[in-house]
C-alpha cells in the first residue's frame, strides 16, 4: 500500500520557522488535498519529500523509506511536480519526457507509448515536437505534469499544479487529477484554493504557519468544525469605508450574529447562526443601515468557513 509520512518534520530558514514539527501519515490509494494559504509551508513540505531541501529536524518517508537517506529508492515509485520547473528550451516535450522516461527506467518497449499517452493526457499533442523555449507558462506546466505521470508511479506529489494555468487549463488539470484517482494511487496535492481541494480530493490536510491543523476526510472536517451546519458567514462589501466602531455594535445587535470582523477598509465578514432566516435578517438590517452596501456574499460552504476559521486561529 502506498504511503507517505512526515515525522516531526521541521524546516528553518535562519531564525524563521517555515515548518514546525509536522506529523502526517497518509496511507492507501486516495487523493489528499494539502490545503493552506500562501506561505503556509506546503511547498517546503513537498520539497523535503523530494529531497530538494533538507529538513532541519525530523524526516520524510515514502513507502517507509527515508527520502534524504535513500533518495533513489524512496523516489523510485513517486512522481512529483514541485512549483514550476523549467525545461531546457532547446528540447521538445517528447525529448524532455524521454529523458525522464530513461532516467526512471521506463522499459524501452513502452517508452514511446507512455510518452505519447502522457502528452495526450495533458492535451499537448500538437506541440509534442516543438521546442519548449517558446511555450507559455501554462504549456510548460502541462509538460511538467506529464513528466510527473510518465512513469506511472503509485505516489504522485503535486504542488499547486494549476498555478499559471488559465481557467480552462485549471479545470483540465483537475480533470486529470480526478482521472488518476481511478488508478489506485496515492495523490497528495497542495493548493491554496479550497474549491479545488473539495472538488477533487477525498481527504484534506490543512496547514498554516508550518503547523498541521487537521487531517481527516472532507466530510469529517466539515462536520467536526461547523457545528450543526446552520452556522454560516457572509462577506459584505461597501461603497464607503466602514466605520468599525458604529457597525460593530449595530451589527452585533442583529439576532443570530456571532461576530463581525473587518477584512479591510470596505469589506467585512459577519458570522451567524440560525441558517438562512438569520442570513435574510442580516441582509435586511444592513440595507436599512445605509452603509453603502454593494455586495453580500455568503461563504460557499461549511468547509470554507472551517478553513477560514482554522487559519484565522493560527494568525
Amino acid at each position, binding site marked *: 500500500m502506498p504511503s507517505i509520512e512526515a515525522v516531526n518534520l521541521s524546516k528553518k530558514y535562519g531564525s524563521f520557522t517555515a515548518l514546525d514539527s509536522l506529523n502526517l501519515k497518509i496511507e492507501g490509494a486516495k487523493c489528499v488535498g494539502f490545503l493552506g494559504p500562501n506561505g503556509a509551508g506546503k511547498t517546503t513540505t513537498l520539497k523535503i519529500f523530494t529531497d530538494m*531541501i533538507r529538513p532541519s529536524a525530523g524526516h520524510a518517508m515514502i513507502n517507509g523509506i527515508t527520502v534524504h537517506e*535513500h533518495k533513489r529508492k524512496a523516489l523510485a515509485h513517486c512522481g512529483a511536480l514541485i512549483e514550476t520547473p523549467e525545461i531546457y528550451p532547446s528540447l521538445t516535450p517528447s525529448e524532455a519526457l524521454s529523458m525522464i522516461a530513461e532516467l526512471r527506467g521506463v522499459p524501452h518497449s513502452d517508452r514511446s507509448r507512455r510518452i505519447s499517452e502522457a502528452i495526450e493526457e495533458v492535451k499537448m499533442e500538437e506541440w509534442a515536437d516543438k521546442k519548449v523555449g517558446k511555450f507559455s507558462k501554462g504549456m510548460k506546466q502541462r509538460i511538467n505534469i506529464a513528466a510527473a505521470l510518465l512513469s506511472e508511479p503509485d505516489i504522485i506529489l503535486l504542488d499547486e499544479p494549476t498555478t499559471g494555468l488559465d481557467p480552462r487549463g485549471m479545470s483540465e488539470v483537475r480533470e486529470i487529477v480526478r482521472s488518476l484517482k481511478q488508478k489506485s494511487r496515492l495523490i497528495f496535492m497542495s493548493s491554496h484554493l479550497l474549491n479545488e481541494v473539495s472538488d477533487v480530493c477525498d481527504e484534506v490536510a490543512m496547514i498554516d504557519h508550518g503547523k498541521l491543523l487537521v487531517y481527516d476526510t472532507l466530510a469529517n472536517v466539515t462536520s467536526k468544525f461547523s457545528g450543526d451546519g446552520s452556522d454560516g458567514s457572509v462577506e459584505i462589501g461597501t461603497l464607503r469605508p466602514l466605520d468599525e466602531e458604529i457597525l460593530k455594535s449595530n451589527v452585533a445587535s442583529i439576532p443570530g450574529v456571532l461576530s463581525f470582523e473587518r477584512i479591510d477598509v470596505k469589506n467585512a465578514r459577519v458570522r451567524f447562526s440560525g441558517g438562512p432566516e438569520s442570513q435574510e435578517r442580516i441582509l435586511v438590517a444592513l440595507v436599512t443601515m445605509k452603509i453603502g452596501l454593494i455586495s453580500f456574499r455568503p461563504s460557499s460552504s461549511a468547509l470554507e468557513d472551517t478553513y477560514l476559521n482554522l487559519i484565522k486561529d493560527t494568525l
Partner: protein
Amino acid sequence: MSNSSQTEESKEGNILPSSVSQVGIVTKYEISNYFRSRRFFILLGIGLAISALLTFLIAHYGVSSFGTTSLDFYSGWWGRSATFIVVFCAIFFGGDAISGEFQNKTGYFLVGNPIRRSSIYIGKWFAALAASLIILGVFTAITLANGLYYFPSSVPYQFEESFVFTLVYLISALGLTFFFSSLFKSSSFSILVTVILLLFGFSLIEELIFVFAHIEPWFLLSYGSEIVGDILTNPYPQHTIQTTGFGPGGRGPTFTTYNPTIPEGLAIMLIYFTVTAVLGLVLFERKEFT
C-alpha cells in the same frame, strides 16, 4: 521487496537504471542541449575566427614568422592559442553549468526524480567535455592542416604531447569552472567569477608573485598549464632562469623566472581537477533547491 540499491523494480515494470547509467543518460541529453545552444556556435565561431586569422597571417607574412622548423610552427600556432581555446570552453560550458540550473530553474525538472545529484553533476560535466572536445577538435584539425601544408614530412612528437597536455588542462579547467558554478546560484555571477579568474586573475597573481614574492607559483593552474607551450620549445625551458636587470647604478635586482617541469605541470592540473571535482560535488549535494 528487494534490498538492492542498484536496481529497484517497481510493479509498473520500470527498472531504475544504476547511477552510472543515469550519468550516461544525463550526458546524452545534455549534449544535445549543448549542441543546440547559441553558446556552442559562438564558441565554434571564435575557434574558427582564431584559426582563420592565423591561417591568413601565415599565408600573408610567410611561415618563417614562426621560425624555421616544424616545431617552431606548432609552438607559434598551438602553443599560444590552445590554452586560450581551453579557457574559453571552460568558461562557456562550465561557467554556469550548475548555477544556471538554479537560476533558470531547469534543475528543478530533474532533481525531484530518483537520481543522485552527483549523477546530474557528472553527466553535465561529461557533456561539457564533449562539447569542448568538438571545439578543440576543429581547432586541432585546422592546426594540422596548416602544419602539414607547410611541413608535409612529419608532425613533431612534441605536438602530440602538447595535445595530450591540452586535454589534461581542459579536464582540469572544466573541473574548476564547474566548481565555481556550484558555488553560486546566479549564472551571470558565476560566469563573471570564472572569467575574472581564468582570463585575468591567475596571470595577475603570477605577475605579482614574480615581482614581490619570488617563489615558484606551483599553486596556480595557469602555471601548470604552461607545459602545453613549453613542450613545443626546443630545448625545453629550464626550471629556473635567473635574469639580472640593470638599475640606475649598474647592476639591478636579480629575478627568477620559473617554468614548470612536465611532471610538475601534470601534477598541478590533476590535483586541481581532483580537488575542485570533489568540492563541487559536495557543494552540489548539499545545495538546497529553495
